[in-house]
């Protein structure tokens, strides 16, 4: 992290980073960006905080500042509301590119705690939100079935086959 903050620009820049993102699933749109800023002007988060600006984040990707992007938490600021998908005049799908960036960040071990909790929940129970005991009692009381059928074993088999388990055990 430190190196990313203090290093000289040319040494930090990775010329191939934009293409690394472009070649990650959902990342192709980064190649279409013309930096017009319509994503930023449409973004509900960019209006509330100066920290986040999707155009600027893509600019950072284009400049090849790999560590700044992947080790920070700015890509998590995207709400995936997909307003920019409908608005980007180039069809650049910036909200989709954010998934590519987050997937790459996860590979670097950068996953927010909240997502680790959800992911662990998913692995152990087959779902990201589990009903509390109280909720189960209520379900029964209000005439809803108490058993909600969940394929935990199958979900685990799938997640073991992908890199999921490895990703959530990694930490920065």
């Amino acid at each position, binding site marked *: 992290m430190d190196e990313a903050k203090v290093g000289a620009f040319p040494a930090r820049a990775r010329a191939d980073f934009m293409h690394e993102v472009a070649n990650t699933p959902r990342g192709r749109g980064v190649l279409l960006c013309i930096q017009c800023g319509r994503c930023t002007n449409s973004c509900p988060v960019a209006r509330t905080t100066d920290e986040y600006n999707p155009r600027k984040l893509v600019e950072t990707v284009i400049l090849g500042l790999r560590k700044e992007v992947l080790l920070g938490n700015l890509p998590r600021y995207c709400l995936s509301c997909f307003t920019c998908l409908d608005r980007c005049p180039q069809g650049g799908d910036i909200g989709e590119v954010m998934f590519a960036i987050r997937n790459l960040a*996860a590979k670097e071990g950068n996953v927010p705690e909240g997502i680790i909790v959800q992911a662990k929940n998913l692995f152990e129970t087959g779902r990201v939100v589990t009903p509390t005991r109280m909720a189960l009692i209520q379900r029964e009381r209000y005439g809803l079935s108490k058993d*909600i059928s969940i394929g935990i074993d199958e979900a685990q088999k799938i997640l073991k086959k992908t890199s999921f388990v490895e990703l959530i055990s990694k930490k920065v």
Partner: protein
Amino acid sequence: MKYAFFIGCLIPARELGYEISVRKIMPLFGVELVDMENVNCCAPFSIQSLDYASWLSLAARNLCIAEEMGLDVLTLCNDCYESLLMTNTLLKENKELREKVNSVLATVDKEFKGKIKVKHFIDVLYDDVGVENVKNAVKTPFHGLRVGVQPGCHLTKPKRLHFGERIGIKALDELVKATGVKSVDFERKEACCGGPMRGINDAVALQVAKQKLDGLKNAGVDCIVTVCPFCYLELDLGQLEIKRHLNVEYNIPVVHFAELLKIAMGMPLEDWEIRSHKIPLAKVLEKMKEAK
């Protein structure tokens, strides 16, 4: 009409009122909901942030179950809807990707074939039941009630995924209006509720929700109508948090569209259902009674 009912995680755990309303309403329109057995999480955006293959495989497994049932999927949650719809569309269009996902699914003896459609509860009401039939089923139209509709993002965005299915949020507005209410335009209507920011930066999440609530307040609505369980939480519970952290009080009741429709169809909310709303419903329920 028969649908494979994918209820998701959040609704059966925390928003029982939404679930019950849908289960009561839909059969009255001749829509049979068959609960999907042995499903797993839809793989919402938080999970998609981790890994592409995990998302597609988890979502595709659910779709395979519906394919085996021979039924189209009906979802209630906008997140489930988008995850399953995107996966279904991607895998139908892209053979290479389909083969990759199927190689993962082979471990659980499933194969994605691309035989079914994914629909939101709103799609089914609009396309299959029809606004006219919804209107006819309404026993007590709430004339004079001003509501702000919160469509949520993934009912309509991105446009290309939903193109041709419905005309954006107009369809939802028409359905809401079928209950006799006036759907009021407000600033930031099509914007996100801020929910996905929870756990990343709660202060920003509240600010995003606040933008929306400001718009609703300026428009002078009696209540907010939601279709997504996350929007519901963010706008209902969120109002309490905004009051606590930002010292701004809105007091705008939030109801699920399914609840509004249920009441309009002559089935009042039970006490526990009313109590489950963080912002008290008393005011708006009173107005509904007056409307009669």
